[in-house]
């Protein structure tokens, strides 16, 4: 019985996994495929990928599909009960100052934020695990690229990632036959690649978790689960059920044909097929409970359907509730022995919260005006991207900021929406009537957008803690966020702006507002939704929360399998690394089970 309730859950689970997103899904998948019995607790409701409103168009939605507080990424976005605010579950900002603002994106649904994400799947490179050794800032990870690389390989083969191997600095190649072919480029991709190339800025195929062709169900399962015939056959069967991209509809709507990665399309179906996974939704975990011998014995959760507090037990507990939510659970798990929260003898739980540095610019490109009708839906964007290309200049100290960024960009004749004819006065001189219709046709598809995604260095002023007053609707104390950028991030954002302007200029384009400076140039903390840190891994129990296996220093059978363990936040989008670390932690747990150590 895969979906259980607070009443029908079992009492003899090997592992509890708190959270069902990329980290929790990956951990549960790896554990179940190898025979461990897992109870997964998800705070939100059940969600089936078949709910995805793939082809639905804006006129079928309220307000033409506009963004609202209940649906911040638009009506058809896959997110359920989430966004910048979750009903009844507030959080607090320590400062009213905009520069100290942190926005927290959550989702209350099976699969969590993995249903919504951009599917950009970049590996951290060797530099990214040893940043302190390179420039004396932040922290080194206790592991290196070589430790994680086999798990990057496995995750890419499991979920399906398109891209190519270009051999660029700190931008690792994948093994042969690991990546799927990238999609064709749009006209705007060709133009950006050409003009950025003239500036020495390389545009190469992006890596995204979208099936551009079927996965190799005859070859991959044996590579992922050697010696495990049952796991191989389950995975082969499930891989056959995934359909390659049909080159239409936004990935953010969710994917009912399972062409892109969501925990709900990739991790949970085969894990459920093993019979080893029980899933309990509407279970708001707020505390890890301790048994004898300093070991965790389960979790307390609110059954949201009844409002009552319940308990679940297991031999091992994995927190994968999202970086800050996992920190919140630890900080709320107080006892006489752990007055400042569980696994927090270092005082580092909640510390070093990081997001990605974001900055954006849009350009209007005359060369792209009045193109013939083209179907440019593609794989929903990002055929190409620009990896960080100024390592030598940065090493030589020429840039004034310590870490790099990559550029995501896009254009094309995408589905017209609420914004299509809006805000064109700077181009049209305020036309209306027949002239306005002609203007909209002329400019439709002629815009390109650039988004910088840069590395933030962890600092002492960006952290979360338990607010002493505010509680959520369940009575659970909520988080209070402190946030501060350093000059490294601000200068990096300014550099993004000048780079974007240079590329747009090289394309013969123009911008409406020009280069943004100062605080305007950098996106609000948290708004890129790459929240990591808060329970960082390290080599020393005094300065970190977990060891190299995502195992908390203080509690032997308590692990963290989400972004909380990140000791740095490279410009590479974190999800692929979250999955690689979660799989690695799961393998470690299985090994310890075999040795009867857990």
């Amino acid at each position: 019985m895969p979906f259980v309730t607070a009443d029908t859950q079992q009492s003899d689970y090997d592992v509890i996994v708190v959270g069902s997103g990329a980290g929790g899904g990956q951990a549960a998948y790896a554990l179940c495929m190898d025979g461990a019995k897992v109870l997964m607790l998800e705070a939100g409701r059940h969600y089936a990928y078949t709910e995805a409103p793939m082809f639905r168009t804006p006129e079928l939605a309220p307000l033409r599909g506009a963004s609202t507080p209940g649906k911040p990424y638009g009506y058809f976005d896959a997110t359920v009960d989430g966004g910048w605010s979750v009903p009844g579950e507030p959080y607090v900002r320590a400062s009213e100052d905009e520069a100290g603002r942190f926005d927290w994106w959550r989702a209350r649904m099976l699969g969590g934020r993995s249903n919504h994400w951009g599917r950009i799947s970049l590996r951290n490179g060797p530099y990214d695990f040893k940043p302190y050794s390179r420039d004396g800032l932040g922290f080194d990870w206790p592991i290196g690229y070589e430790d994680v690389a086999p798990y990057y390989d496995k995750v890419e083969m499991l979920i399906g990632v398109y891209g190519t191997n270009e051999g660029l600095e700190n931008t690792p190649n994948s093994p042969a036959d690991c990546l799927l072919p990238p999609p064709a480029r749009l006209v705007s991709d060709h133009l950006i690649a050409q003009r950025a190339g003239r500036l020495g800025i390389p545009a190469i195929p992006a890596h995204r978790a979208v099936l551009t062709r079927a996965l190799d169900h005859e070859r991959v399962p044996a590579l992922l689960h050697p010696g495990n015939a049952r796991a191989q056959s389950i995975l082969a069967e499930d891989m056959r059920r995934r359909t390659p991209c049909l080159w239409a509809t936004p990935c953010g709507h969710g994917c009912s044909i399972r062409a892109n990665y969501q925990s709900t399309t990739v991790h949970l179906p085969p894990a459920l097929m093993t019979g080893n996974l029980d899933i309990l939704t509407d279970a708001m975990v707020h505390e890890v409970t301790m048994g004898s011998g300093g070991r965790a014995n389960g979790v307390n959760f609110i059954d949201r359907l009844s409002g009552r507090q319940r308990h679940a037990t297991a031999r091992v507990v994995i927190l994968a509730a999202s970086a800050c939510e996992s920190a919140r659970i630890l900080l709320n798990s107080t006892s006489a022995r752990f007055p400042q929260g569980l696994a927090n003898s270092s005082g580092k739980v909640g510390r070093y919260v990081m997001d990605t540095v974001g900055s954006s610019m849009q350009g209007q490109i005359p060369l792209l005006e009045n193109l013939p009708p083209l179907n440019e839906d593609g794989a929903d964007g990002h055929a190409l991207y620009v990896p960080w290309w100024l390592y030598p200049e940065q090493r030589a100290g020429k840039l004034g900021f310590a870490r790099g960024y990559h550029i995501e960009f896009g254009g094309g004749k995408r589905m017209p929406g609420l914004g299509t004819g809006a805000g064109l006065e700077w181009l049209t001189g305020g036309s209306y009537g027949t002239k306005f219709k002609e203007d909209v046709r002329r400019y439709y598809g002629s815009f390109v957008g650039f988004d910088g995604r840069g590395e933030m260095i962890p600092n002492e002023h960006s952290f979360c803690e338990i607010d002493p007053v505010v509680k959520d609707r369940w009575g659970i104390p909520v988080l209070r966020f402190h946030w501060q950028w350093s000059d490294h991030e601000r200068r990096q954002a300014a550099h993004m702006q000048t780079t974007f302007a240079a590329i747009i200029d090289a394309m013969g384009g123009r911008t409406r507002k020009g280069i943004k400076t100062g605080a305007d140039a950098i996106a609000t903390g948290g708004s890129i939704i790459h929240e990591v840190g808060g329970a960082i891994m390290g080599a020393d129990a005094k300065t970190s929360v977990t060891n190299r296996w995502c195992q908390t220093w203080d509690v032997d059978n308590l692990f963290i399998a989400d972004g909380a363990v990140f000791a740095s936040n490279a410009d590479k989008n974190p999800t692929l690394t979250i999955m690689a670390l979660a799989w690695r932690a799961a393998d470690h747990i299985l090994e310890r089970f075999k040795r009867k150590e857990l």
Partner: protein
Amino acid sequence: MDRRTTLKWVLAASTAGPLLRPGGVGAFSAAKLGYGSDPDLSLNYHAGELWPLTLTPAQRRLAATLSDLIIPADDRSPSASAAGVVDFIDEWVSAPYPDCLRDRGIVLGGFTWLDLEAGQRFGQDFADLAPAAQTSILDDICDAARVAASLRDAAQFFARYRDLTAGGFYASPFGRTDLGYIGNQPQASFDGPPRALLVSLGLDAQPLGPRVVRWHELLVGSTAPGLRGWNTPGFPAGWRVEDGVLSKEDPVHDLVTLQTFGNFELELEWKIGKGGNSGIFYRATRAYDHLYWSGPEYQILDDANAPDGRNRLTAAASAYGLYAAPVGVVRPFDQWNETRIVADGTHVEHWLNGRKVVDYELKSADWTSRVAASKFAAYPQYGLAKAGFIGLQGDHSGAVAFRRMRIRELPSV
């Protein structure tokens, strides 16, 4: 109420209502706002179903007039009001969301101002004015960058109203048609823009690029790159290539591709002479002396006049001798037909003139039993190769011509 007073009221109204900042400090209200955070995405909503519409008939009339001045009907698409924009605007300004509450003040204030202005200038409500009078007012407020200082607020109203009108119109089927949007349809493949378009934009040569699976043209000008004789070293006599058309009159040697193809998609057009018979083999090998003993055949035939046309199993587009093609799809002799063959693993499809006419699974029980009952039973390798040549049958009677022949490999599954 004079204009200044009106606009003060506009501004006051625009800041009324709760201002919800995302993730605001303190508690975000748990009360369900609008449609909440988990609406049923499968339902088709109509304006007025979730919250009552609030514009009066007079306001809706003005809204329609103004929207249609912004987006009038033309030969490509209807006017804004005909595309449902008035309902959308009424829904928008009646909604409980912060942006909508702000816009409600701007829009209603603007409506009041427009009628006052029309009354002052022409003694009538705006909607009753002649078009020239209406545009004389709009011309004064349509561009915030060059508007008179006294009309700045009115210009902001008009800019917002134009954005709402455009949003309502372009986020509708009429708007998508107007802009020539052709996406949101499932596609078998995504090939990117036509090469000719890229060339015209100076974007043909790219130093770095995705390694996409590309089409290979098999007939280019007066050459047939990639084709050779089946059992002759060069290009066999009797075949001609002119202007991209490959043709022959009398029995000649068969042609095969230089490369072998496993999973592929082949497209071409063909024209058969009266009573003629030809064919396209695929995954053919050199296991036997004849292509057709190893490679399945897409039959090419003048159904009306060739003997094989009397049996659907051997008629045009059939999988020769095994799977029948329906009647009535092929065109008469001397007319061009469009053919597409997809072979993906064991799955094979024959297409003719835009229709899938044959669809079968190699090595399936059904296929095996059909082979056993056919003349191919004598050739144990028939149809079993995972990859092989594409062949064009030349040794049968009658004229045949091919053009627009291209092939691309499909990823191996």
